[in-house]
């Protein structure tokens, strides 16, 4: 059975504390709820959630959408944003879990990656060093979301194309992002038999597409 692996990399650094992290939790729940109403997604999507602050946690290893249970997403009081380290962990997970075609195994669909951050990587050297590895993981699409005034769109675009930006960290905006992710994943799971990059649905007005 061909799976569509979907990876969410979520910033849980100290600055996300409070309303933003609540919005992320609600957003992830919404995302899962919406995908479960989509027959393509329900049959094919496997979801993984990796959070990063000072620590990188594989909160949900790659799991079938129908059996996935979303663990609590928490944030420390303060601390750096180790996005570089998160990418490193991501590459390890993808290489271990995503199946490529061979005589004996059935290849998965190209995995999709969504990265949401409200800052810029504290481990910038590791971040830049890991980007080529991420790009060799075979992702069908890497979408970035730079949320809030402190998020660096430029740095995030180094790994994620396209990158969208959210001007504020308000709950409504973050939820919009997750709704759009859900639509993108649905679209991704539909575009089968394709070698082309999955087409993204147009982002809602709150999400500014960075060209």
């Amino acid at each position, binding site marked *: *059975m*061909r*799976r569509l692996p979907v990876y969410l990399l979520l910033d849980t*650094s*100290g*600055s996300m504390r409070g309303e933003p992290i609540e919005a992320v939790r609600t957003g992830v729940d919404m995302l899962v*709820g919406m995908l*479960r*109403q*989509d*027959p*393509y997604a*329900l*049959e*094919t999507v496997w979801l993984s959630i990796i959070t990063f602050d*000072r620590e990188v946690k594989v909160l949900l290893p790659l799991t079938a959408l*129908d*059996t*996935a*249970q979303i*663990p*609590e997403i*928490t944030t420390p*009081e*303060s*601390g*750096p*944003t180790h996005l570089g380290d998160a990418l490193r962990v991501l590459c390890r997970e993808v290489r271990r879990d995503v199946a*490529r*075609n*061979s*005589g*004996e*195994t*059935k*290849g*998965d*669909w*190209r995995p999709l990656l969504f990265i949401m951050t*409200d*800052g*810029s*990587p*504290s481990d*910038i050297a590791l971040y830049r060093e890991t980007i080529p590895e991420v790009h060799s993981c*075979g992702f*069908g699409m890497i979408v970035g979301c730079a949320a809030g005034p*402190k*998020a*660096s769109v430029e*740095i995030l675009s180094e790994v994620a194309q396209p990158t969208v930006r959210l001007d504020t960290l308000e709950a409504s905006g973050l939820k919009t992002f997750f709704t759009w992710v859900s639509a993108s994943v649905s679209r991704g799971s*539909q*575009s*089968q*038999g*394709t*070698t*082309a990059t999955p087409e993204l649905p147009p982002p809602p007005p709150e999400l500014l597409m960075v060209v």
Partner: protein
Amino acid sequence: MVSESEKPLSLERVHQSLVAAQRELETSGQGELVEISAHLEVLIDRVKSHLPPVQEPVKIQNDSITLTNETPPEVVASEAATNPAVLPEPELLLPPIYQSEVEETILVELPAATADAPSASPESAPSLVPAHPEVTNEPEASPAVVAAPTRQTVQPTPLKAPPPPMIKPKSMRLPNGNATRAYSAALGSVLKIPLERLEFLDPWPAGLSLSEQGSVAGTPEVAGEYVVRWRRVGESAVEGEFLLTINADPRSLWKDLPSDRSDPFWKEDSDKKQGGSAVANVVAASVRGRSHAHVGSFRDDDFGMHLPPEDDSNGWHLLCVADGAGSAKSSRRGSQVACNVIIEKLKELLVDSPEGLAAELDARSREAEESEKADSAFWTRTLYHVLGTAVGHAQAAVRKEADALGVSIKEFSTTLLVSIVRRTTKNAWFVGTYWVGDGAIGMWSPEWAAPKLFGEPETGEYAGQTTFFTSEDLSRAETVQKRLRYTLVQDFGFLALMTDGISDPKFPTEQMLKMPAAWATFQEDINAVLTALAPGQPNTDQQLLDWMDFWSAGNHDDRTLLLLVPRAAEVETN
């Protein structure tokens, strides 16, 4: 519990300032400042270690359970209950057995939070039995017995001074279920409370019930998010709740929308055909995949066939299937044109000119297997001439359509699998093939040690990647030659041409296409069709079309299958 007043207040201020400074630096986005923020962190940790413990909300979690004070249960419950419209009616179609690994995931001991647990701290125990707004509800499930835990997978986390008034019931999440599939989950060690001392305030999802052994089992009927609250018999306060997600049956979510008939490249959502010659019977069917039906788009697959007249024992059977690329806008037209032109051109080359390949075939006096090897140079050259010419014409015809629209031929991308089959006057079968892309052309007989696979399916590293006939550089002889295969056999069970909508679910890996066991299973699977086809019974095409409606999770591509069965052959029924 250490009271805050026991610690110097000034240290707390230092901590707050440091945290504020660190956040400022960290979110500055400037490399150096961000690095300094990382150093500051070490300092913050050291200061923090001298501070009194921070009050955290009561949240304890592991993989399978969560104690949380979020999401009032009654909201979730009413959403599921009052909004039945969004929850599709489940279909009761041969549900696969679902056996949840309850032993692994559910048996947990909740942390020291009950009166039964002697280690509970005096502050935390009473506060976890709060007055719940819904306690006036009458219990809807009768008390039953909860089994004692057989294993414990959670290490108790000490509760840190929960704020007294706002505690909500403890939530335990059960494994997710699927509508119409059997479900079973042990409630586990519900606080080590005997089941007869528990009462449930909400019903279990329709189709599920609590057994005396303490597991929730049955076949859930309706998808939704369910909350089942419980309390102790005689207590008024709700003590906890079980959360349970029931997924919809994906079969109930698929829509079947008609395709747009006004589209210039519209074609029927399904197609079928059958026919016979003096020596063989052929049937083909092609259906739109669920993924296309769901959004009202078109069938991208196609097929074509030309059979000799019924009194001709040595005529050519010309067969092909094609799968238009899902990503290419006009691929349904690409597959259609390729099939039509291939058959037309092959007919011209093989049927309309009486000499040629047929005469050469008949002239070979050797036994079939012997000729297959001995005359390989001849067969390769001849096949190259016939099939190479035909595919060249087919590609040119597709390109012409693309040019007329002023678009790239990529918009017409399609795979192509062609077979020419003839019984020689020496009573051997000759099969020549050309195959580009995924899907398969294979031949099988139960008496064979291995199937004959006429090439390699071409797939990329990931699903959905393949090569397309329309992208082939046919001006290069080797490009064409490497796609050609042929065989000469005395007899066989059946020949199958299929698109990946069939080969993916029926031969899940490429290796399986080469395995005799996989072909034996496939034969068994379509045996009813083969048995009807051998004597050429009417409506075998409809029978094949019905068979192709098989359910296979995750495989919702267009499906096309073409079968040829020698008339003389008796298909074994294993």
